[in-house]
């Protein structure tokens, strides 16, 4: 056996390991698991199936079993690894702090190299992960194309002729639920540097995100607005890229590393107080750049620095001290804890405090608010059945009498929008920042009601 300090520690400890590529699941991580089972009931997939292999403990055990040579990188191993939502609920529950999410991502990296995705998963992968998300310009075009589709009447024709019926059910629902794209992507459109309204309190850079900017550009606009209201000079670097979250989740670590490096170079080129992100899924990936690039001698340290500067917009505002908005919003809302905010970043109270600071807003609790809604990146496309069951449970949990369900992640928002369509509900799905923005803009409840009418109308047109 070779000296561990020179070679691969995993290979040294587990000579029979069936992991063949670099960046294998880290023995230091899986050896922390003591098989106590405290994580079982926290796991949405275990709750749904009762299968040990679909639990965090089971997944870690199987990941370790491949290292021990008991299992190989085949479909039977891929199933438990790929059905993981990467929601990190287990990490909140685990007494030993086992990083189940990171282990699963590393295992997916191995599976990805062993057997690159084929079938529907492969197609989605090629289109979205390699062909689309990494290119801001293509995302912009897609967004503009979607706007055109929605407005030009093609959508109307497609719906009328039943053309959409050739799509799988969940894609049809997603098409229906897609918000009307009224705002063009922010990146490259609005000014690169924006001055604060009033006294300057901080200088921040903003990562606009790819899905966020394509589908929810209005949230990006709102974020800029809210930051400026809170005394921030906002920089939107044009050379930024997709954060790579979906690539890490899918096991495509090479592309993810490329994207991470580009962002590190971009954002660390200026002296800023914080890198602001408003999408939970991106945020937790950005904060884990250090982990992703840990064996890259050139980037490891920079990645850590980048991660330290990264902060979710809700926790940034909470820390900075929110300048409370004056506009009143007579709204009853409930708050859903996005997995990648609550479990991955430990952000729970901050967004709630922000919401409660808005005059007139009444926040009612959502039972089991930190249970995954089933969105989980592109999970709702690759595992529609499990995602659908989780969504149904979520929709049933929403308390009566809510005007809006608020959250901090665009992926969850899309999933909830599908839920609203599927369950014939009326709640608006909003980002925490949108609600703050509304209050800053001093919009009154009447305009709010108009909006609700408007979205109801566009939905009834859909059905």
């Amino acid at each position, binding site marked *: 056996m070779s000296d561990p300090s020179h070679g691969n520690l995993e290979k040294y400890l587990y000579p029979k390991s069936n992991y063949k590529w670099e960046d294998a699941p880290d023995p230091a991580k899986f050896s922390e698991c003591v098989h106590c089972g*405290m994580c*079982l*009931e926290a796991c949405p997939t275990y709750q749904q199936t*009762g299968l*040990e292999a679909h639990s965090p403990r089971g997944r870690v055990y*199987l990941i370790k079993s491949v290292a021990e040579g008991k299992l190989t990188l085949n479909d039977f191993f891929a199933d438990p690894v790929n059905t993981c939502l990467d929601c990190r609920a287990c990490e909140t529950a685990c*007494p*030993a*702090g086992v990083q189940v999410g990171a282990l699963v991502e590393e295992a997916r990296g191995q599976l990805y190299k062993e057997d690159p995705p084929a079938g529907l998963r492969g197609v989605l992968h090629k289109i979205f992960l390699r062909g689309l998300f990494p290119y801001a310009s293509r995302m912009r075009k897609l967004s503009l194309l979607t706007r055109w589709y929605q407005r030009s009447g093609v959508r109307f024709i497609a719906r009328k002729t039943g053309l959409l019926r050739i799509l799988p059910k969940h894609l049809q629902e997603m098409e229906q639920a897609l918000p009307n794209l009224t705002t063009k992507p922010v990146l490259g459109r609005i000014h690169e540097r924006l001055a604060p309204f009033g006294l300057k309190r901080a200088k921040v850079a903003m990562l606009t995100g790819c899905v966020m900017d394509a589908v929810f550009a209005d949230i990006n606009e709102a974020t800029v607005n809210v930051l400026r209201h809170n005394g921030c000079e906002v920089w939107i670097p044009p050379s930024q890229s997709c954060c790579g979250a979906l690539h890490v989740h899918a096991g495509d670590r090479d592309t993810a590393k490329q994207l991470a490096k580009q962002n590190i170079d971009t954002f660390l080129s200026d002296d800023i107080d914080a890198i602001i992100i408003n999408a939970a899924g991106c945020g937790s990936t950005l904060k884990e750049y250090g982990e992703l690039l840990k064996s890259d001698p050139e980037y490891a340290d920079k990645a850590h620095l980048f991660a330290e500067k990264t902060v979710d917009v809700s926790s940034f505002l909470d820390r900075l001290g929110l300048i409370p908005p004056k506009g009143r919003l007579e709204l009853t809302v409930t708050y859903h804890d996005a997995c990648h905010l609550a479990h991955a970043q430990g952000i729970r109270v901050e967004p709630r405090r922000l919401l409660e600071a808005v005059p007139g807003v009444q926040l009612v609790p959502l039972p089991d608010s930190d249970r995954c809604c089933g969105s989980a990146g592109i999970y709702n496309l690759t595992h529609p059945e499990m995602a659908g069951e989780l969504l149904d449970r979520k929709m049933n949990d929403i308390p009566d009498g809510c005007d809006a369900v608020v959250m901090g992640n665009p992926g969850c928002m899309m999933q909830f929008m599908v839920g609203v369509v599927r369950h014939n509900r009326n709640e608006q799905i909003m980002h925490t920042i949108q609600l703050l923005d509304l209050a800053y803009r001093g919009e009154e409840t009447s305009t709010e009601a108009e909006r609700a009418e408007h979205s109801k109308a566009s939905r009834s047109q859909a059905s």
Partner: protein
Amino acid sequence: MGMDSQTKALIVGRLEQMVGPRAVLHRYEDLVAYECDGYTIHKGVPSIVVFPKSTQEVSDVVRLLHQNRIPYLPRGAGTGLSGGATALNGEVVISLVRMNKLLDVDYANRKAVVQPGFVNLKLSNSIASKGYYYAPDPSSQAACTIGGNVAENAGGAHCLKYGVTTNHVIGLELVLPDGEIVRIGGVPDAPGYDLLGFLTGSEGTMGIVTEITVRILRKPQGVLTVLALYDEVNDASQAVSDIISAGIVPAALEMMDRTAIEAVESGNYPVGYPSDLGAVLIVEVDGIAAGLQEQIERVMEVCRKHRVREVRQSRDPQERTRWWANRKTAFGAMGTISPDYMVQDGVIPRSKLPEVLARIGEVSSKYGLRIANVFHAGDGNLHPLILYNSMEDGEKERAVRAGSEVLKVCADVGGSITGEHGVGIEKMEDMRFIFTEEEMNAQMQVRDVFNPDNLCNPGKVFPKPARCVELKRSAPLIHSS
């Protein structure tokens, strides 16, 4: 043991007809995750795992296995710490996790009916809004099943005042090892033998529990909690003795020693204990609000008499929750300071604690293994956690020997080898510390009445040679197999 592949294919086919193909696992890759429960020293891959959804399905499955003389065992969440749910010899595992419903709550008569796979904490959560709870609270309560609790007669931090599982079970439905469905109890203090008491704690060797009726309690009006930090573990133990002899009945009285504190502080739920502490005590009193503050003052008074470094009451419910989360995750937190651990479950007279801890210290140095101590101090239930690394040659074996020696210490001072985790695989041999061959044989004969062919969770609880001796020496009492 195990089945030949032809039999297995046949059985799998029949099982799939009974419960549906999605409720039967039989490929090696799907079975590996069931290789062990919360006790990881001994392992065994089951030949099949089956998930019945109703009592009738359990009965059908058991009948089929019984007819074909195939050994099997019930499994809940697999958090057991003595290997009771491990298929050491390739038994068929009957998993009860999909029988996870709360069937009925009868507030007027203060009872609830649950399926065996219903998770302990979910019961308290489901009835909390009405002001009720289920008292037995094992630290694993967020994950373990009530069926598993019944099988192990589980206890918990608050069992000092309220009693363990057996004190809260008032009725059981059971599938006997030949597939027959029986109901036991249901009325308080039924005439005849106390079969409920006998079945509770039988570790899955008497049949499969398919429905449980439990007592539910009204939540106490008030709860007050105190934390006492000690430099010396002996002072803390003395305080424990004095609290009890002062006539105070705390709802919980828990202790952790220095190594245990090191683990919980590096775990996911740190409280912020200083790193140089010798021991920490958590004392809780509950009941009607009047007089509670006075009780807790008395507790603090006693604590102060024994060179306490700091003693203070929780400021708010959040702080109390943090203290408990820290304590209740102590076992799992060992993962942060050691790759593996083996938890022991000795019971000792409280007064012997200083002596026992000293002797455990000797065992620790003798085997060169660290031992952390977590202690349900009020009822003398000690959990020494032996820390080892299974990747190091011979360490696992040393841990097993050290564990056995620790139990010997407990037995020697007039205690016992298990308080709440059961015997399972782990402590079979250690049964000899407290029972003679004859005493064990007598117990096995009782088991044979229920489980005559020993197909239901075989090879657990009693050491093997005892069985041989039995076969040679004494004729079975009632039933012959």
